[in-house]
């Protein structure tokens, strides 16, 4: 247990390398992918649900809900392959072309920020691991090192897997936003707000949407499970060496140190996400006090 607390999960049987080292290398891939997917799901899902609720029974509402139902039913691995076919093959030669595999194009290297800024540290120390971990977030690393080419390329490589991974959470978030908004839009305080002459925008955003946020935030937190599960499939299709694919390969190869270490990290991620969701309740609704 003391070793685990110090980040020492033992050595992988298959790779003959420390599990911590493999985690430092692969966790950032999944975090970047998951964050991008969640970002897409939230920025598209919430407005779609909102508009759908406000224009109830209109063509937009029906269209959004049909799309959401199809999105929930879509196998992630199928969507991933279709996206790769459309964007990497059919749109080849157009500006919309996107790379179907890997994290960076061949020949491009993401120079770690500590090399660019000549930061010194003891090799194999905790600081070294931390710097390595941070620099493996290619998007973040390229921003702080002002490397526009790597930034553009890493974002282009992330779009397809993030789109595939975002579909189910997006559909669920849009459905939840719609149903939650429909519930609050019928409340007395919304009618009062309208009757005292508040602008429609203030009524919708300040009164209705704010009160709908709790179930929406809860459902966003729950999507992390979908994203971790989907990461296995998405990373397999798009050739990304992330936590999901590594854990899947470790399970099938019976590489127990990796299984232990990665499972612990995933469970920790889950617990932290749920904690953040719980803490956000008090922030969104000050009536909720967490003792």
């Amino acid at each position, binding site marked *: 247990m003391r070793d685990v607390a110090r980040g020492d999960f033992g050595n992988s049987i298959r790779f003959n390398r420390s599990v911590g080292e493999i985690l430092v290398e692969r966790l950032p891939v999944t975090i970047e992918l998951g964050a991008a997917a969640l970002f897409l799901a939230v920025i598209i899902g919430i407005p779609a649900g909102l508009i759908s609720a406000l224009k109830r029974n209109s063509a937009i509402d029906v269209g959004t809900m049909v799309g959401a*139902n*199809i999105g*929930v*039913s*879509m*196998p*992630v*691995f*199928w*969507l991933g*392959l*279709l996206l*790769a*076919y459309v964007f*990497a*093959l059919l749109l080849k030669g157009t500006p919309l072309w996107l790379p179907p595999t890997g994290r960076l194009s061949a020949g491009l290297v993401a120079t770690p920020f500590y090399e660019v800024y000549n930061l010194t540290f003891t090799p194999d120390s905790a600081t070294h691991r931390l710097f390595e971990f941070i620099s493996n977030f290619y998007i973040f690393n390229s921003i702080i090192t002002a490397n526009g080419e790597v930034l553009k390329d890493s974002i282009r490589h992330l779009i397809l897997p993030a789109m595939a991974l975002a579909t189910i959470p997006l559909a669920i978030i849009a*459905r*939840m936003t*719609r*149903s939650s908004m*429909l*519930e609050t839009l019928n409340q007395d305080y919304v009618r009062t707000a309208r009757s005292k002459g508040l602008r429609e925008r203030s009524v919708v955003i300040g009164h209705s949407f704010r009160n709908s946020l709790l179930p929406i935030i809860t459902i966003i937190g729950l999507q992390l*499970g*979908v994203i*971790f*599960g*989907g990461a*296995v*499939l998405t990373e*397999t*299709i798009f050739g990304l060496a992330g936590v*999901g694919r590594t*854990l*899947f390969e470790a*399970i*099938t190869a*019976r590489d127990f140190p990796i*299984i232990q270490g990665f*499972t612990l990290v*995933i*469970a920790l991620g*889950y*617990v932290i996400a749920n904690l953040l969701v719980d803490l956000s309740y008090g922030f969104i609704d000050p009536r909720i006090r967490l003792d």
Partner: protein
Amino acid sequence: MTTSNNYEPTEIDLQRRKETPLLQALRSFVRQRSAILGMIIIGSITVIAIFANQIAPYQPDQVLIGQEDVKKRQPPCIHLLGCPEDQPQHLMGIDGNVRDEFSRIIHGSRISLTVGFVTVTFAMLIGVILGAIAGYTGRWADDGIMRFLDVLLAFPSLLLAIAIVSVLGPGLTNAMLAIAIVTIPVYARVMRSVVLSAKEEEYVTAARSVGVQNNKILFRHIMPNGISPLIVLATLGIGTAILDAAALSFLGLGAQPPMPEWGAMLSAERNQVFSAPHLVFFPGLAIMLVVLGFNLLGDGLRDALDPRMKNR
């Protein structure tokens, strides 16, 4: 101006008051277009599965080498869409082992429906019993059962299913068992909450006071309260189970070749997506359609059986 005191019930109102809850639910269900669409999709797929041998022009594992002039991974040939009449018709093309893709998709419907129904039935049976015992007995049984199920819920379900299958060994039966195990907590939690609220009701106290045995109270008086939420959960759960089983087969842990399982068919040809997209497109479409059908049906049932959940 009329007030609510002067309200005269119309004939329709009177007729509705006579209706049983089941009839009301049925009326509400029939009124929903999406639920009807779900029913049509599931009904059609069930008919296809039952008459697969009659509908499919070939056997699912029939290799056409030497029987017809066809090539490996040949695209669809449909006479109505301009394919020359002298070429044999293959609606969804030919797969990598020179078998008719359409026949395999048709036979795959049997596997998917079986996976969905068997998995959910097993998970529901175990979950309902565990949830009922936890809720009714309380104390240590409740703590023991629910904490164990909480552990199962703490992991992403697909990863947990992968772990279980890797212990049991790859195969469709083991994949079904794994999916059933990871979904047990969902049914147990619903049943437990139903039992917890129902066991305080007066009819339960009355039954207990006249000396009805505990297991009779539980199975005859309390558990029927959980039927409608369980039907809804099970319908939605069938779709999820089919999706998860397809994902496991895609990863090589579920159905094994030459079984015409849609996830496994997709997996076998995934590297050919650029050269033979039809072999990826059709199995995925089939999975999506059957899951969509169960989702629409489940949503419709939820709105019909639990009006509070309408619009969710």
